[in-house]
């Protein structure tokens, strides 16, 4: 199996704090991989390095053979990487349909002058884009909600709209940052099935940050564990579950953290 993304010795510092420390990482094509770790372990920072939000200080990231660590976010997006956000970041004052149309930005190439003149090429292009946006809206189960402003949609629908917007960029690699946050057990189950569908039907490689252990263990083929910015483990769900280092990172440091972590664990098993 070929790898779609290779990260070598990626390091990101914020002042004196090393948020991500010489992490090596690989994603096989058409795989579903996850990254887990306690809060503040550097997962989202690592995401940001890949998508160009915050450039990494050292190391190299290769996407299908192209080094992307120095590219701007819009250039990276054109290569085929899309993402969603931990705290949903939709274009709140735009309609659901418009949100998806912005996602299609890179595939529309009529200039503003032809848009003002209103050439038939522009009309054609807009018509196709609109049909595609409708199709994506249906695909994520938001049929008929296209006219609603993004901020007026219910929480679950906003999550799905964010995924639809990311899909509009026709990504080869989709990064999902805690997609199940704030979802109830049923919604979480639907989401897991949906993520599988993305891979199986559309052939998109999925890279997921998730706290929800049931989701992670259920769909990941490979899991990477970060702690204090360093990769402490990597392997299949079964391997990770039995890895002593991981158990220590989550459960093992002192009585107080143990109590909190196990409470968290209990909570997630209950809701999961």
């Amino acid at each position, binding site marked *: 199996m070929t790898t779609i993304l290779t990260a070598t010795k990626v390091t990101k510092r914020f002042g004196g704090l090393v948020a991500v420390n010489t992490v090596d990482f690989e994603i096989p094509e058409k795989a579903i991989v996850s990254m887990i770790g306690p809060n503040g372990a550097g997962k989202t920072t690592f995401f940001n390095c890949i998508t160009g939000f915050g450039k990494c200080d050292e190391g190299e990231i290769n996407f299908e053979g192209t080094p992307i660590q120095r590219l701007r976010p*819009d250039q990276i997006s054109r290569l085929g990487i899309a993402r969603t956000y931990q705290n949903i970041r939709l274009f709140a004052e735009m309609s659901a349909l418009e949100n998806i*149309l*912005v996602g299609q*930005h890179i595939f529309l190439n009529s200039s*503003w002058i032809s848009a003002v003149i209103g050439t038939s090429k522009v009309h054609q292009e807009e018509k196709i884009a*609109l049909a595609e946006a*409708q199709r994506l809206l249906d695909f994520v189960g938001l049929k008929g909600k296209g006219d609603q402003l993004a901020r007026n949609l219910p929480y679950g629908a906003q999550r799905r709209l964010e995924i639809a917007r990311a899909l509009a960029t026709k990504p080869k690699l989709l990064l999902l940052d805690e997609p199940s946050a704030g979802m109830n057990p049923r919604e979480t189950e639907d989401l897991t099935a949906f993520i599988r569908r993305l891979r199986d039907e559309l052939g998109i490689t999925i890279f997921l940050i998730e706290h929800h252990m049931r989701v992670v263990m259920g769909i990941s083929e490979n899991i990477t564990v970060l702690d204090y910015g360093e990769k402490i483990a990597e392997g299949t769900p079964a391997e990770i579950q039995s890895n002593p280092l991981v158990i220590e990172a989550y459960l093992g440091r002192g009585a107080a953290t143990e109590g909190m972590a196990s409470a968290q664990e209990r909570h997630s098993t209950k809701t999961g």
Partner: protein
Amino acid sequence: MKKENFLWNVVKTGLIFGVITIFLCLVGMVEVFSKRDVVENVITLGQFVLLAAACASGFIASRGTVDPQGQSKPLPALAAGLVAGLVTGLLLELLVIGIGGSAEPALRKIFLNASPSLYQLLTFGKGSDTYWILPTVGAISGLIGAGYLLLPEIFRRPVNRAMLVVIFMALFSGIFRVVFINQGPGMEVVAKFLFGQTGLTVAGTLIFFFGVILIAIFWNYRGEQIQSGVARLPKSGQISLRVVTIALIAFVALGLPLASGPFIAQVIVTVALFILMGLGLNITLGFAGLLDLGFVAFYAIGAYTVGLLTSYGPFGLQHIPFWVAVPIAVLVAMGAGFLLGLPVLGVRGDYLAIATLGFGEIVRLLAGSDFLAPFFGGPQGIIGIQKPCLGTLGPFLKIDVPRVCNGVELGHPQDIYYLAVAAALLIAFVAWRLRESRLGRAWMAIREDEDVAEALGVNLIQTKLLAYMLGAAMAGLGGAIFATLIGSIFATSMQLIVSINVVSLIIVGGMGSIPGVIVGAIFLIGLPELLREVSEFRYLLYGMTLIIMMLAKPEGLWPSQATLRELHHTEVEASVEAQ
């Protein structure tokens, strides 16, 4: 406990409005406004403002009686209105007592406007025995305000509209009168029946008030039927209906300057120029969310470019035809937008506002400076700017056109009117097309969340620069027309206040909304221009309007959402058809 609170709130409302009325009296507004009538010989504009304040006091106080279900018991509501209005009246009465009946009131040493004539006005010309009048009038007005609250919704909107129409007609009765009288003897009778010298006649007031109410109630009951009837018409019928509407509007637009004379035409030209600037800033601020407080700079650059290229004065570089100079001015303004945009690309929010503010001031100061006076005329400005000439179009790129126009010269404000209105319509169309395009969506995405937009493949550099450039181009076009309208330009007319006006009209109209820009320009630029008598209070009223707008209707007079949804319904239908 709760009862006491309520009573105190009612009294407080009365006191607040009492203080407002005293303030309006002491700044001299009531006195100046009293030179105009709302209803001739019955009520002056000044008195009307005071009554309106008492009514508002009653209305707001009685709102305290509304229960969570939105219902209100009549008696407590009326009582609250009465008390609040009474308090307002009493407070104003204190002012009357303070001024006193003497020829040189002691209060006048501090407040210049506490004059005997104000005393006359507030005592209705009756002198000292009338201390009961103001509180009584206040209480009755408060009752009316409370009664308005109790009106069922079906009547409230018609009454609203009717009041607005009456006030509007009264304010502009002088203009309407002249326009009607100009139409011939038949119309003169109508004009004199409806409009007096300084306000509406009694008959005119009644006709407008009840006419509007009747129409509004009729529309309430039959409006939907009529709309659905229109929708059921065959396609050809709908098209012909639309053609008739457009033809009617075009007829009015074309005939307006001829009917109304140069003054109105000039006011409309000013409004159109601000619409051009507003549409331009609406692209940078309304669409892309980039606050530009130095927007007047692009207006100035457009104006100076046309001035330098066409002037016959000492600073004219060339005498090329106006029609050739305009596109050049637009391009130069666009270039200036590019130059402004480059350094501030990474600057966000408040910092951007300050940076652009600096840009506006730099352009104004440079244009008026002694240092650059050999090029831009310094404080003397550029004079003798060419009027557009329709005859010079023959040899299109003739570089040096003669001073005397051989064809039709567009010399009067009425002529420029057509130019300015056509330009405003054209640019409104361009702005609308841009908004609906891929670029427009990218702008709005940047406004909403710049980082996310970039992650979706929007090139921030290109998109932001285009927003600055296209916005600047529109303002530059406005400046170019301004130059030829006035015939001379001075750096002093490119003040910061112009930029602030443009920002305000966008906010009042509705951020990001194209019709909002037009409504905002008419409301904030057109109305004050027409009401020259009250121009000393222009910025007082302006400020009050902005505060009230932000409190009552922060989304603007014509917000973009409504139109947005409408447009999208048609789009969705179209796409369903396509599938």
